[in-house]
């Protein structure tokens, strides 16, 4: 499904990694590990096509993602460090806008149902500026509940700012998604974030040059 071929990433004058190749079948969870500054986020941004690698290419079902563009983006969800949550919009509005941008047809009912499942039942109609960091993160992550059909999730530090209950819920959500036969790529500092047999780990620390 997702294939990385000889990826090299140079930021400034520092080579973060080079000759990085891997291939992921469906139903696999890839955990990208590494110390701070080892290039985890850069790798994820390369995988989703926001950043072009200095060398090499990323292939999705055999074709280069730079030629697939919207075809590829239609099938993935990328949640980065920033929550993409607007202060002035309510939680529901934020979620609906995010879904529409991603090309999903989501009505208000589905959006509030997803927020309720993420424990934001009483915050749906509140503007996001009165929500706490963790709650804003939940608004952003609630998109995953509505993205069960997408075959590739790319998540950058999904557990950050979440409380224990929400982390547990995220872990089940990811485990269920992998069990459905989808691919999930995530970065986290936890050793074994999700109990699944198909965990692949890439450690970028050893690749620092």
């Amino acid at each position, binding site marked *: 499904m997702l294939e990385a071929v000889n990826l090299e990433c140079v930021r400034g004058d520092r080579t973060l990694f080079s000759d990085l190749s891997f291939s992921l079948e469906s139903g696999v969870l890839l955990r990208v590990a590494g110390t701070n500054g080892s290039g985890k986020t850069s790798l994820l941004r390369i995988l989703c096509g926001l*950043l072009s690698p200095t060398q090499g290419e990323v292939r999705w079902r055999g074709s280069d993602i730079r030629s697939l563009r919207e075809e590829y983006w239609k099938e993935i969800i*990328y949640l980065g460090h920033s929550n*993409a949550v*607007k202060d*002035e*919009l309510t939680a529901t509005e934020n979620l609906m806008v995010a879904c529409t*941008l*991603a090309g999903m*047809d989501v009505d208000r009912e589905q959006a509030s149902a997803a927020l309720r499942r993420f424990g934001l039942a009483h915050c749906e109609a509140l503007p996001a500026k009165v929500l706490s960091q963790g709650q804003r993160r939940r608004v952003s992550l609630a998109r995953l509940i509505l993205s069960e059909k997408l075959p590739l999730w790319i998540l950058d530090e999904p557990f950050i700012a979440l409380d224990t209950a929400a982390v547990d819920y995220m872990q089940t959500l990811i485990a269920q998604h992998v069990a459905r036969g989808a691919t999930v790529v995530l970065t986290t500092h936890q050793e074994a974030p999700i109990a699944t047999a198909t965990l692949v780990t890439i450690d970028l620390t050893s690749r620092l040059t």
Partner: protein
Amino acid sequence: MLTALRCVIVRDLLLAMRRRADVLTALLFFVIVVSLFPLGLGNEPNLLRTIAPGVIWVAALLASMLSLNRMFSEDHADGTLEQMLLSATPLGVTVVAKVIAHWLVSGLPLVLIAPVLALQFDLSQQLLWVLTLSLLIGTPVLSLIGAIGAALTLGLRGGGVLLSLLVLPLYVPVLIIGAGTVDVVAAGLGAQAHFLVLSAFLVIAAVFAPWAVAAALRISAE
């Protein structure tokens, strides 16, 4: 695709409505700058009539510049821009939506209030209409060209000043033709040629600007 277009426009209008101060700043700036001229120059009707189109057009340029650097910077800061770049909708469509929303919030109010302000300059009723029409065709061009500058200076320190240096020279042709439209009518000639040139600017900008903005936004994400 149209759903996404509508969604982005509605979202930006909603944001502008909940953050009214930003919108009103540009509008009040326009009103005050235009009103300062009759106050400063005295009440010589012929002088005022001569400078009216130039003053109003220059004030419109500056007022529409005020809100330009906010066009993409907030989306850039909170990560929404990343999601737009990875959207299933072509980026050009999203850009068009952002530009339309920007014009509705910062261009259209100027067009609507311009005839009222022009009364201070003792313009005849016919000239009021010509001025309003020239602003109606001209201000979307300003938003389109400005979007290129806003995308190119995204994430830069001191981007605001650079943005003005980048965009104002490109505004010059629009200013010359726009203000010229009123002048030729005042001189008793037909304004058709001027309106056609102004419309040509709009068509060219509408076709090429979204494409240039999309390319600049992709570079800024790297």
